[in-house]
């Protein structure tokens, strides 16, 4: 075995193109990494409260000491406004970590559950335990937050973790590798950098859970790879998150919240960004005016020059987005913006009115600063339109109409629903964050992160006494009667059956 491995490595070295790893090398590295980490995990180190706390506290320190460096790396990768990097990544991570530190003891306590007459006498509890060695694959748009937030949950639940950050955000990827290397227990927590080859090699390995944040196409690849090992997955995907805007609302506040959720979050490159708007034909002109007005307040007359807007992450996505606008019947529907600058990868906030329903922009997740508005006759019509598409990660409604709110909550299916705001449900403690159907499976945040990376083991304690002879052969009519009475839960019929007094 060893000889074959050495031969493979030698062959790999001979065949390697300078500076690039080949498939063999990458596979061997992935498999020996997992082997090493499994051996460390088997020592039982991660199961102690002390180890988990030490790692979480180290993470808190890391975030505090390197806040500036982290923000700068995010800005380098995405030209994100420093404010967004600090507010939506660093601060949220600190919060998440502090919450875990504060609540870990509570989360680890087994949950006692009641037992019924069917197992009398007994006591029972549900004991959370780590799944083992987990893989976290994170995306480029919130490269720090979406890398470390799942890792926090995995550590809190007592797992060993391998993190594979996105190569599309290289500065944060390499900073993560450096900081995790410095601050965390490297025998159990590691960062693997790289692209498709490295990710594929990692996905071939056997993991106890895989957490993937990204798009549905790769989500399927991850789940198919996981299927080979019966590995459970947490998939945080995306979709077209709609915003339904009713009339009779505080238009200024609503507009600001829509703008903040769309262009104020990585310039639309966010999984829960408002993707498109649905509003009545009558209300649309008012909404468009309000949006134009507030957009100028936020980003000035020349948004391409504003420092408060992220750029598009790379030329691939830039081309994808400009193509959405260039489509024949679409370009004519632009009512605001539509400007772009290839050299700086910037696209200005763009609003479209009634682009054709079958155009690309109305069918693919936009993930950029383009906001189509679709008009309907009555606002309720929008619910059917939403439900006719695939289920999004989030659905938003702006209204003052109580009945409409309840109808929306009850009939629109999405990962999460927000009334009268956008995006910020992510930060509400106590709410699970995850999708449904195309937008994902599983959820995390807060205690849900701990749960997502745990196995909830059912434990039943029985005493040797209290045996119901009905359980054992030889089986008789009397035993059947007694069993029926017991399962029916009626003490009286049980007594009757015992004394042979039942009517059967």
């Amino acid at each position: 075995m060893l000889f074959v491995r050495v031969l493979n490595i030698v062959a790999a070295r001979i065949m390697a193109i300078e500076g690039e790893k080949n498939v063999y090398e990458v596979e061997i590295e992935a498999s020996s990494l997992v082997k090493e980490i499994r051996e460390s995990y088997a020592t039982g180190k991660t199961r102690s409260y002390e180890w988990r706390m030490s790692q979480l506290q180290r993470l808190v320190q890391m975030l505090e000491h390197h806040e500036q460096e982290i923000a700068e790396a995010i800005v380098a990768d995405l030209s994100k406004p420093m404010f967004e990097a600090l507010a939506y990544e660093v601060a949220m991570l600190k919060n998440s970590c502090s919450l875990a530190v504060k609540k870990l003891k509570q989360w680890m306590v087994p949950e006692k559950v009641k037992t019924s007459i069917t197992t009398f006498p007994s006591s029972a509890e549900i004991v959370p335990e780590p799944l083992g060695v987990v893989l976290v694959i994170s995306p480029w748009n919130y490269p720090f937050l979406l890398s470390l937030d799942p890792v926090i949950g995995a550590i809190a639940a007592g797992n060993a973790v391998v993190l594979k950050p996105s190569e599309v955000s290289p500065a944060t990827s390499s900073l993560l590798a450096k900081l995790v290397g410095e601050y965390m227990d490297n025998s159990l927590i590691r960062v693997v950098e790289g692209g498709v080859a490295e990710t594929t090699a990692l996905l071939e390995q056997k993991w106890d859970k895989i957490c993937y944040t990204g798009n549905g196409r790769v989500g399927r690849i991850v789940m198919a790879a996981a299927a080979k090992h019966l590995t459970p997955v947490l998939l945080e995907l995306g979709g077209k998150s709609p915003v339904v805007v009713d009339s009779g609302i505080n238009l200024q506040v609503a507009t600001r919240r829509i703008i903040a959720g769309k262009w104020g979050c990585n310039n639309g490159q966010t999984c829960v960004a408002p993707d498109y708007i649905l509003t009545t034909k009558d209300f649309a002109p008012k909404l468009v005016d309000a949006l134009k007005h507030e957009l100028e307040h936020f980003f000035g007359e020349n948004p391409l020059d504003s420092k408060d807007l992220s750029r598009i992450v790379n030329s691939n996505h830039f081309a994808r987005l400009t193509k959405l606008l260039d489509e024949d019947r679409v370009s004519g529907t632009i009512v605001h913006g539509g400007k772009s600058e290839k050299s700086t990868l910037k696209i200005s906030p763009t609003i479209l009115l009634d682009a054709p329903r079958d155009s690309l922009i109305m069918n693919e997740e936009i993930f950029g600063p383009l906001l189509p508005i679709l008009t309907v006759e009555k606002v309720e019509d929008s619910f059917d339109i939403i439900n006719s598409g695939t289920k999004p990660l989030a659905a938003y409604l702006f209204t003052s109409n109580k009945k409409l709110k309840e109808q929306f909550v009850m009939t629109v299916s999405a990962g999460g629903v927000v009334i009268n705001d956008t995006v910020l449900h992510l930060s509400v403690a106590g709410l699970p964050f995850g999708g449904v159907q195309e937008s994902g499976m599983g959820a995390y945040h807060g205690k849900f992160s701990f749960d997502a990376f745990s196995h909830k083991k059912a434990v039943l304690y029985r005493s040797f006494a209290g045996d119901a002879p009905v359980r054992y052969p030889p089986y008789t009519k009397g035993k059947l009667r007694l069993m029926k009475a017991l399962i029916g839960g009626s003490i009286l019929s049980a007594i009757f059956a015992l004394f042979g007094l039942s009517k059967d």
Partner: protein
Amino acid sequence: MESVGDLERDLEGMREYYSQGKTKEASWRKSQLKGLLTLLKEKEEDIFKALKQDLGKHHVEAFRDEAILPKIAVLSTAEIVPEPLGLVLIFSSWNYPFGLSLEPLIGAIAAGNTVVLKLSELAPACASLLANTIPNFVDNKAVKVFQGGPTVAEQLLQQKWDKIFFTGSARTGRLVLSAAAKHLTPVTLELGGKCPAVVDSLSSSFDRKAAVKRIVVGKYGACAGQACIAIDYILAERKNISTLVEMMKVIIKEMFGGNPIESHSIARIINKQHFLRLKNLLEDPNVKASIVYGGSLDEDHLFIEPTILVDPPLEAAIMTEEIFGPLLPIISLEKIEDSIQFLNSRPKPLAIYCFTKNKSLERRMISETSSGGVVFNDAIIQYAADSLPFGGVGESGVGRYHGKFSFDTFSHEKAITRRSFLTDFWFRYPPWNAHKWQLLECAYNSDYLGLLLVILGLKKPRRGSYQPAYSH
């Protein structure tokens, strides 16, 4: 089996029915669950007959194991609203054909879904009974039942579902999960494994007797060992094994008589294929040599008598594959604590049974091993504990059900946030500057005093917390 075109039309019809919203109504769900309850009551005799025909099960065993009905509680907070997933597919198994069909079906309906139930062809009398009676007791537009074998299963798996619930083997579980990946369909897989019984020294003879009775019934009394939670094998200290074996022999005779096949109290093997599989496990000469009780097989009646083996080789198939039959290997250990390492070097089972009064072993068993569940001083019975989740981990499965967990497994927990227009934090919005950052920091840390001080201009920006690379 209908053609693929017909199947797709049927499913389209079910999705259409679902979108009308009927299945979401509480009254509809209650009426369906009542219908199933009525089915169980009215068809009890027929059910026993079918089980006898397919599995040779005694009706008391059948009643004990299959007539359990969970109580479902529907919980909803203003913030997390459970909603049905839509159209779900349930695969049930042959060993507990009623329980493993109806229990998930009940959960799916209670959660408001439309359901397609695929029964196992290996228990044909039971499948036929269910396929013919269920439509008379529930809403046919929302619940459809399919019989048939692997071809039918494959056709069903090609379709798009909102959830797949599968009970069966790990090998097929992988196929189901791969098919589900194409549509990003969430799954619950109730698989199996080798459920061990770790039997410690017990000083009281009362305890010893109770333990042995529970072990014997937890193997041979559970569909003749053909159950995902049946005891697969025993781990015990070498010094206790001969007493254990002797006690087991006595109890087996008490429970099943001198000629077990005549007791009609042990199920038979489901079919020839499984019978030959089990026969094969005993072919290995080293395995055969380790038989200390039983070992006789009746191919005509598909019956294998309760069999005990002591220390068959660990590499033999009987110790590496899930047995799923009435063969019980006992593996000897130097000390009982060695069982922990033994278990940890093998795939995670659906259940670990531990017979002990030693609290330290209890604690170590919970914290140092991993399995779907753990039961102390008994076996199988965890299935009846509705407040405990029932499911595996690793090779033994993904997800869980029973009781409220059934409802949850067929639901999506939708998170709802309601905001008013009144409180708006103006510092949420661009253009960004150091002042706004400060305010937001305070808000994040729930530092409302700090917030006030910054607004009043009484608190300076923290050094190094925000360095704009440009000025406003």
